[in-house]
């Protein structure tokens, strides 16, 4: 039996009901103002700075442990790491050789078509804070905020591909919603044939799905998905994932397509915030569907997949 020793007795909590009602009204007021009128941005920014010490205090022991493990790791491990990184660098350099030329060529072609989608001019690296902010939603906290120019809806990449987008901005920190969150959708294109559709999160960090493809759509396991740049949120041409399974049930009109995200959603420590050039943003904010680059090889697709990017805009479907 738990012993409560306090001598405070019932007579002393007079006005409990009144105080409860007052606090509840205050909370309800906050909810309504925050949700309906969006007036509490400044209050939230201020509060988010107040909780930063707690967040740092929780995250730092884990970072300290990582640092400690790194500093005592053996010479062999470091040599092995170095060899691996050198091999990766060599490979990356091979791939980069033609990049400059291709980039210039792509710019020329884009200029011809008056389409600057996917041109980004500024990157900022952010570190993911080691915190578990919500058990039911796929979100992470990153140590860059409004002070660094981060804004809501900004695209976030990691070294593998598209990581997510900024859901909320504090003064010093920002909250990033992962592409795998159940409420997140991103306009994508199949790299092989240009088929456009939407990739939706599943709540599972290792899987996305493409719910708007008809059973006759030309997709196979192994196809690479890249951002289409429609909707204006994400720069075009960054890898989103690889198709790992296509299930076609003749009784259904839509296929079930599973995708493995390209970004290391559960392992990344550093992410990159992307700023699009103003011209790119202007082009993307009002994209008439007809002027969208439509590869000649694109197979017939359902009306749904053509209409969906415009509706969803790649934003969290709140």
């Amino acid at each position, binding site marked *: 039996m738990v012993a409560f020793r306090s001598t405070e007795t019932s007579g002393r909590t007079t006005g409990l009901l009144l105080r*409860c009602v007052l606090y509840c009204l205050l909370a309800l007021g906050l909810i309504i103002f925050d949700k309906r009128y969006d007036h509490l941005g400044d209050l939230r920014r201020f509060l988010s700075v107040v909780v930063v010490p*707690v967040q740092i205090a929780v995250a730092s022991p884990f970072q300290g442990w990582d640092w400690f493990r790194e500093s005592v790791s053996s010479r062999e491990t470091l040599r092995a790491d170095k060899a691996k990184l050198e091999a990766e660098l060599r490979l990356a350099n091979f791939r980069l050789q033609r990049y400059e030329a291709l980039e210039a060529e792509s710019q020329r072609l884009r200029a011809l078509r008056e389409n600057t989608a996917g041109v980004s001019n500024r990157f900022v690296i952010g570190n993911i804070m080691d915190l578990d902010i919500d058990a*039911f939603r796929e979100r992470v906290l990153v140590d860059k905020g409004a002070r660094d120019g981060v804004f809501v809806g900004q695209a976030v990449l990691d070294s593998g591909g598209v990581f997510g987008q900024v859901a909320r901005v504090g003064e010093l920190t920002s909250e990033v919603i992962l592409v795998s969150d159940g409420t997140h959708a991103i306009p994508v294109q199949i790299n092989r044939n240009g088929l456009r559709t939407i990739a939706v999160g599943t709540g599972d960090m290792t899987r996305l799905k493409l719910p708007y493809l008809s059973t006759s759509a030309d997709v196979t396991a192994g196809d690479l998905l890249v951002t289409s740049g429609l909707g204006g949120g994400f720069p075009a041409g960054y890898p989103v994932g690889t198709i790992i399974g296509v299930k076609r049930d003749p009784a259904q009109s839509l296929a079930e397509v599973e995708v493995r995200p390209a970004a290391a959603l559960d392992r990344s420590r550093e992410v990159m915030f992307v700023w699009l050039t103003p011209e790119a943003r202007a082009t993307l904010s009002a994209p008439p569907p007809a002027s969208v680059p439509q590869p000649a090889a694109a197979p017939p697709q359902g009306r749904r997949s053509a209409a969906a990017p415009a509706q969803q805009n790649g934003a969290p479907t709140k």
Partner: protein
Amino acid sequence: MMRDEPARRLPMALSALVALALSVMPLPAPVDAFRPDFLVLVVFYWSIESPRTGGLALAFASGLALDVIRGVVLGQHALALTLMAAWATNLRLRLRVFSVLSQSLTIFALLTGYQFVLFWIDGATGNPVTTFSRWLAPVIGACIWPLLAGLMSRVDDR
């Protein structure tokens, strides 16, 4: 063991901070689903132990901190925690003479009510979270309540 009110504020704030840290501490995924709502339990403890000092103000402030940290609509956790802390305060004289089992069951009811208010506001603001695991936290919380309350009153006596 009567103490004046300001002297109680410090342990109250400290325990709330520790509980807040525990509730955002990164845990390996399999264990993560079984994490109880530490801060809620601590607020319940103080609502029962000394409602006059902390009580609803503590509940409201803790809820607001959770709102900001979890990045949900402001006031969600604050509303749920205030309501349930008021209920706990109302029940506290009975709770003190309950057996361990009855206490845990009452705490389970309070935690379920808390989750329900959260669930309802999630739905009302258009972010429904329908995973079943959200209803696991009240069970775990009720199970560790005797341990936590015992530990806290032990530390508080010092």
